[in-house]
């Protein structure tokens, strides 16, 4: 396999989609915390954590060096767990999620991109893993 950098080719597009979610989630969380944090402190804290994960994943994927790959893998694994847990919980106990979050019902409000993104991210990190030199 030829050497493909994680932030080149398809990786460039992946970073952009991550960046859009990072921007959207951060801005939304910023507004929620600044204007109405008292209404739902737990939900808005979770929302801020999700935003932070998207930001970390974006930066790590964009940098693409050895340490960044590890950071990206961890962040994206947490992201996948988050979308699966929140997605399932929002179906099992919808009353606990009064206002829709980006991960509610597996991101169906966002064309399921929040569910596809971590799977694509982990696949791409795996595909571009450094080949050990003999």
């Amino acid at each position, binding site marked *: 396999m030829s050497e493909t950098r994680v932030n*080149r080719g398809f990786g*460039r*597009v992946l970073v*952009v*989609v991550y960046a859009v979610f990072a921007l959207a989630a951060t*801005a939304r969380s*910023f*507004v929620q915390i*600044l*204007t109405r944090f008292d209404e739902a402190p737990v939900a808005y804290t979770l929302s801020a954590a999700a935003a932070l994960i998207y930001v970390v994943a974006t930066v790590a994927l964009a940098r693409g060096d050895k340490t960044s790959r590890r950071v990206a893998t961890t962040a994206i694994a947490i992201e996948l767990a988050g979308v699966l847990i929140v997605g399932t919980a929002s179906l099992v106990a919808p009353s606990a999620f009064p206002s829709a979050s980006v991960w509610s019902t597996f991101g169906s409000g966002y064309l399921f991109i929040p569910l596809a993104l971590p799977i694509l991210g982990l696949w791409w990190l795996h595909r571009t893993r450094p080949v050990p030199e003999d």
Partner: protein
Amino acid sequence: MTGPLATLAIVAPLVLALWPLVLLVINRPPGRSLWVALGVVEVIQVVFAVWALVSMVTRTTDFARLEFALYVLGLLAILPAAGWWIRAEKSRAASAVLLVALLVVPFMVVRAQQVWSGV
């Protein structure tokens, strides 16, 4: 927050998005003429943003001003950021990035309009 200027700010990037879509399909990176067209679309966004912010400042009824301002200022950053990100990319991935960016811009204009009308 509707009218010819807002419509242009939505339609122009959508129409231009067809160009990188074609480039993506035929496996080409963006050429010089597409960059010029992107510049024109960005100028349209700047004019729209100035109008939107002036409308926001002069509006007396209450609405989510912070969200509105973030959408309007954010949409200005999308195309320059995308251009910067693909400055050294010579594959069709550069076209794909521009396609995504050109779809995000009208989405943000529509969101700004929704915030304006209280959705």
